[in-house]
């Protein structure tokens, strides 16, 4: 079954089913709490069935998001980001994959983005993470730009110095004309310092 609810601060004690997976980073407490302090409505978890030993159900996936724009002093920059929603983390536990939870959770963030009148939702994904890219493309995201050497490591190649990120976007209701998305974003390369 699928049930969503807002992430509670005490869920950090229970998120091992997702966070023990090597592709999910476990940050310090400050990271999770700062999202809860600023965007509690954009931090959502999906739960699996409850049982007498675990009446609240097990965490099977979660999404961390935020709503923001670049600082005002950046407004003249070509890389200025207008008010938008951002997917900071989206993770599904190995035992709950292929159930559509990633799609369900990102839809919830898109909906919140619309509710708060954001222009688009964006996210970063590793260039090598083809599975995630195809998932996002299937959900209507497209590449807006390529951030060269955004990641300091490359899990598929320990020798490599870093890996590019794809900055992918999906426009929301406010961007009726598609001003903030591109069909050929793979051609636009920027450096990590250009990304706010």
């Amino acid at each position, binding site marked *: *079954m699928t049930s969503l609810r807002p992430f509670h601060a005490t869920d950090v004690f229970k998120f091992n089913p997702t966070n023990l997976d090597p592709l999910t980073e476990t940050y310090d407490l400050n990271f999770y709490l700062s999202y809860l302090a600023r965007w509690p409505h954009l931090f959502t978890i999906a739960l699996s069935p409850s049982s007498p030993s675990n009446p609240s159900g097990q965490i099977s996936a979660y999404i961390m998001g935020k709503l923001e724009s670049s600082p005002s002093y950046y407004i003249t920059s070509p890389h200025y980001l207008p008010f938008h929603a951002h997917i900071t983390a989206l993770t599904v536990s190995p035992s709950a994959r292929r159930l559509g939870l990633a799609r369900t959770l990102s839809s919830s963030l898109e909906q919140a983005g619309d509710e708060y009148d954001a222009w688009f939702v964006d996210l970063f994904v590793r260039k090598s993470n083809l599975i995630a890219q195809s998932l996002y493309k299937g959900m209507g995201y497209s590449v807006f730009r390529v951030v060269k050497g955004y990641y300091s490591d490359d899990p598929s190649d320990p020798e490599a110095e870093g890996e590019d990120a794809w900055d992918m976007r999906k426009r929301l209701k406010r961007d009726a004309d598609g001003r903030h998305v591109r069909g050929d974003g793979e051609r636009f390369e920027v450096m990590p310092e250009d990304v706010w």
Partner: protein
Amino acid sequence: MDNLQDRQDVPIWNAVEAKNYKQALKLVDKRLAKKPTDYLEAVKTYIRSLLPQASEKSAVFIHLEELVNRKSSLSDLAAIDLYEDAFEEVLPGARESWIKTIGELRWQCVKTLPKQEDICLKCFRACLDRDDLDHARQIANSLEKNFPKSHSYIFWNITSMFLFASSPQCPESQKRIWGGLSSGQIGKLAAATREATDLKQLPVRSIQTPQELLLLDRITETFGQPDQRLEYLQDLHLGPESAVAKGDWALWILKLKLMREANRWQELFDLCGTLLKRAREANDSNQLAEASFSDWIVWEAYLKSASKLESHKYYDQIRAEVEAHLDPACKIDKAWKRNASLASVKLTFASSTAFSQNHSAANGEVAELPPRLSAVVQYLQKYGDANTAYDDLRQYVEALESNERARLLIMLDANTGLERPQQPIGPSEPEAKSKSEVPKLSTADQITRAINRFKLKYLVMCSIPEHERKQSLEAKPDFKCITCKGSCGIFCQACLEKLAEESINSYQIAVNDDGQITKSLLTTDRHPADDLCVLTAMCLIKLALIDTSSVSENLSNSRTTYLLQATVLLESAWPRSKSNFQLSLMLVRLYSYFGCGSLAMRAFQRLFLKQIQLDTLSYTMFDRISSFHPHPISDSSDGPSQTRTLIEQLQKQQQLYKKSREHINKNNWLAFKHGSYNAIFEFREVTQKLSHSFSAVMSVIENNKIHRFTTNTVPASAISQMHDLIPADIDSPETTLSDNNDYETFPNYESSLAPTFEELSRFIPGPAETRYRLNLLSEKISLIVDPSPELSGEKTILEQSLKQTLDSQKQSWAASSKSGVGSKSMTRAEQLAGHAYRAMRLIITESCDQALWAKGDFKSRLEGHNSELRERLEELAGLLEEMEAVVPAFQDTLNAVYTAYEVGRTAVYFCRFLNGKGKTVYETQTEASKKIGEAAERLIQVVVEKCAVVKKGLDEGGWIDKVLESVFPESEQPGFPSALLVEAVRQVPDEVFMEEWAGEVVESWKESAAGFSYMKMPSKA
């Protein structure tokens, strides 16, 4: 130089930085003589706080107290900051004193300068950081009054009042006052929102955000009228559909919950029906914008309300809604469709009638099944290739009648009727049957289907009957297995063996796929067949639990054979699924059982725990590490992180607790700033859980024990470290520790009514508050009697604390002593040691308390405590002497040996400690201590002898062969694995792997035994 206010102060701060405090004081006095200011006064106090003399520190504190009572308030924030720094130097972490001095100074400052917003905010934040809720409340109130146009400050004031009212800091008599005020004020704001005509321009004093609505609910729950919460949530302007709510799902969750609690079944039914309909209806842009209304909690509430309304028409409506969701034309996401499918299963169980004739008509065989079984099978057909199918169905299979379960088992066994309906099925068709005997396991979907089938078989064949048998154990010690019809105990050997064999055979087929799946796996992937291996290991572990006989050799019993087989399988699965943390969790437990410390640590390191995971999962390795493997682990086969010593690892965990306070404080403030009021209360919960964590106590205790074991003493900071990480109120009977440990991440395919597999597979009692409290007591005693001179200064405080808490705990002890304290949470050795430590505590506190000496029964009481201590030490020695199967030393042996050594050594120091007290100890104690000393020395002697037996045994050759013989016994014996099972297990690892692995196991035993060399008779004082 952060505190620099004037260029003329530079020389003062230079002197401070150079630690030339005498010079700094001279300079500040000179400046004060010319121009006395609050700031310079504060600088002087700060410099004095840096001086090492206790008299200076005490003078600083007295000065701070005087400042609070001065007529004119301080208004220089820089001066207050300096006083706060001085306070930290004098009384670090003393919250109560901080509140009375610095907190009060800050509040006085705000009162003096109420319009200085920046100063007020800084003071508010400082009070929040120190959990000084009363002053924070007063400052928030001042902010609201002085900045009436600020919407935020209204809510800060309400939140602060409610925080204070809900905290232990608030006197009982004031709780209702502040709680009532917060409730009254937010109620008025709610009324303003309700009455507003223009929702786009709400007045300042109104509720305007979802977080404010959640705060309203939270306060109303505690201090409002019982029906008021639901009333607010039903309101058009305050409920989840209001503009203010901005679609926040948390409000819907609350509303549905409260409607259930209020038994508003008809309303709830109608609401759920509406929500589910809206979920599948597209909006003007042809989008399913409200699809999340198909959440499982809505379906559950829908079904619950229908069951309460007791009419079939309601079930019919649900059935129609399910069909509408499952209609191929409905484009709702598959996660939501799955909810509808599961709702149909639940509906069938609730109504106990066939759900849909049409559905079963598509599948002739299923149509012949009883409705409830049919529902389970249909779900399995549809979602059997999803990992979660087993978890989804578990509770429904448990609810089936035994004859239905028997039918399901036949289908599971024959693997018929479980595929998607379009595939040809039918048990009566010989062709189909032969196909089912060799299941195809070449794709992830096929493997997942097989796994779900095996898990369900395990549930029906093993877990449910085991639970049922356990329930009637007293009445009937021997059972006839309902599945195989053979005689059995709680666990049925025949069924478990059959399942283990089938499951491991399937695993073998799945992984030997000519690389079809295996070669395409990334290093971060796991093999889809892993659960087959885990399930086999579970069966083997249960089979091991059947053998409770005590034998003279560890490697020659069936328990060891089964457990070694489980270990081999999991270890051989790991290289192709390195990211599978469930394999690692099980391996940590198994290696720990075998006493293979270095291998357990290797498996533990594979989890790569960090940050908060150090609180929730450290117990898997570090709980009892001091009585398992207290010496440094030399194995470094898994990379550089392995070289970190045990103490470093425990200290890393302790850093987490220290850092987390800072993180929580920082975000508390951020939450206020961003109006995330609900988060503030959640953060408090996290603080409470971390500050009272089982694992924090464990880390302190184990750290000290390891230190003491390896270096014969503890660091000078041991006592302050204890005060820093162990909650100050720990000895209060009202205080409970928080069990934040994660037991749920362990694999668990057991019946939901039975204990989890994590519990079942505990070979030694798990974490428990009783044990941690007893450990804290033993630690205090060990520190008091420690001969190290570095600790002498703080020992008196510990002695006082022993005495203070004695009375509050006497009663509970008396009761627990009779019932055998901690018999469920401790090993036998730990229980005996526990009694010994308690006796030591009583002797220390009573024999030195001259006020008690005159009491009539004192002498006999003291004699009683001494006899108790002596007898427990003797019992422990006896326990060790009786232990036969000690080579190689498994966990139970190691635990007994190390526990006995520790208590024996403490008892020796205890006697020396009392002897050193001279005439301040009751006169008969000297003689009694002598006898105790003798018993303690004898105990240590027995420990040393036992260790010598283990070491000698391991030094003999042939252990690798013995391990291999134990894993794969050559002949079949009763109670041991059948030849078929042995053969099935043998197929998984190759010979090279087996030899290497057996070598590692033997090396690990030898490495564990290296710790014995640390155990020696304490040198004569």
